[in-house]
């Protein structure tokens, strides 16, 4: 079902309401080409995480459509869409549930029904990609936050999804862990969507920025433009990097 020339992500007028009736997304449209790396920014509660959870059908939209590499998300395609969209949750503790790191990273490929050798190869490759191959026998809850984040990314990489969506990947990381994570992002040859408050990360690694507020797309422009538009940033709960003395702004 994967079309060669289809956009990586084609979201049309996506609407989502929580079961209690709160309307979280008011018609979001977004097209992302294969290999693009885009930032999703906006204040707390603007709908960033909700949007990401709609991309692989964890939340089911109340209107509009999501197409991933040409395949429309519905009940029937849930499994194969999840083989295309890897989701990194903001809290790595939510993602890691197995007694050992290796088992956790193997979960995705095992669930896909891949043969054992390939599962192990994929898991070890993914751990190597995040520099955690020494930790495969460790229990996830004994790792530091930075290590947990890296293992969590490995659990997504091992699935070999062509698109990954990351929710606040650099939150609470120390500067070195953060730097390593950004370098890892830069190395990935995948389509990447990052929901973040970390505008320095946006400036460094993500060429395109979508501003979300109140469940709507406010702006969708090159990151350089958005990051230099102080009025836009202030109006949506963000601050220009110059206020932090960052050299890129």
């Amino acid at each position, binding site marked *: 079902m994967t079309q060669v020339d289809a956009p990586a992500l084609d979201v049309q007028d996506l609407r989502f309401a929580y079961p209690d009736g709160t309307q979280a997304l008011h018609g979001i449209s977004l097209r992302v080409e294969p290999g693009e790396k885009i930032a999703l920014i906006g204040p707390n509660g603007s709908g960033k995480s909700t949007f990401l959870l709609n991309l692989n059908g964890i939340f089911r939209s109340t209107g509009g459509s999501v197409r991933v590499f040409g395949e429309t998300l519905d009940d029937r395609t849930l499994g194969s869409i999840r*083989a295309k969209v890897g989701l990194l949750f903001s809290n790595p503790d939510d993602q890691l549930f197995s007694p050992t790191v290796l*088992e956790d990273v193997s979960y995705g490929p095992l669930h896909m029904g891949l043969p054992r050798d390939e599962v192990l190869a994929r898991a070890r490759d993914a751990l190597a990609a995040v520099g955690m191959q020494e930790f495969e026998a460790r229990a996830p809850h004994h790792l530091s936050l930075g290590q947990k984040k890296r293992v969590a990314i490995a659990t997504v990489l091992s699935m070999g999804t062509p698109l990954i969506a990351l929710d606040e990947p650099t939150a609470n990381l120390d500067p070195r862990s953060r730097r390593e994570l950004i370098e890892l992002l830069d190395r990935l040859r995948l389509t990447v969507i990052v929901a973040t408050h970390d505008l320095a990360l946006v400036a460094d690694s993500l060429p395109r920025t979508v501003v979300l507020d109140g469940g709507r797309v406010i702006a969708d422009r090159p990151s350089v433009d958005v990051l230099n538009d102080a009025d836009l940033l202030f109006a949506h709960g963000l601050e220009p990097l110059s206020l932090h003395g960052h050299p890129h702004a």
Partner: protein
Amino acid sequence: MSLAGVVDRYSERDSPVHRADARAKVPAAFAYILAISATREADWAALGLLAVPVLAVVFASRLGPWFVLRRTFLALPFVLAAVPLVFTRPGETVFTLPLLGWTASDEGIRAVATILGKSWLSVVVAVLLVSATPMVEILRALRWLRLPRILVATIFFTYRYFFVIGEEAQRMLRARDSRSARLPGQRGGGTVLWRARIAGHMAGSLFVRSLERSERVYAAMQARGYRGDHIFLADPPLPAAHLVGASAFVACAVLVQIGVRW
């Protein structure tokens, strides 16, 4: 359905029952349930009469009879534990179960019907209380009634952290589902045993994390001076009218129980 909808039984309405002070409602509900439990076996008149004031409160609460009825089903599984009594009580045989050959006695059926009636009526009273009273008000009332602080604290924290842990479990399930992909033409999903092991790991890690969280929460509480008691803001005065209403409700039940024994 959202988690809060499953656990939080309070239903916001404006009615005399909602407005009544919890310090009047909580003891009245307990006393009424106690009175129901005093009903003798097969005393259908007493059960019927006891249902009248309860029905009156159901209507006064504006919760809607349907709403209350649906919520009482929650207690059904516990009540079903009484059913085997139908077959174990000695008495005249009414029917015999095919295949198993168990015999049901008239005495047994009477006993079970009484238990079902009493429990169900008690559950209606409890449902009324929790649907018309916010949880924190019930806890305040329990503390005001001098229920041991450790019990009140246990109920309070169970209530408070049920949501936290429930949401944590929900997020873990989401994260797992996100990684539960299928390849076209591939029979994935793993074996039942493997999936059961994964579920076990998730439960285990939820437990470890809850334990660790409880340590952090406790440390944070101690940092703010916690010494084992939940200190509520001072109680407002208890209006006499609320006490009178609650007493009248309980008095009905007491009168019924005395009346049927006369």
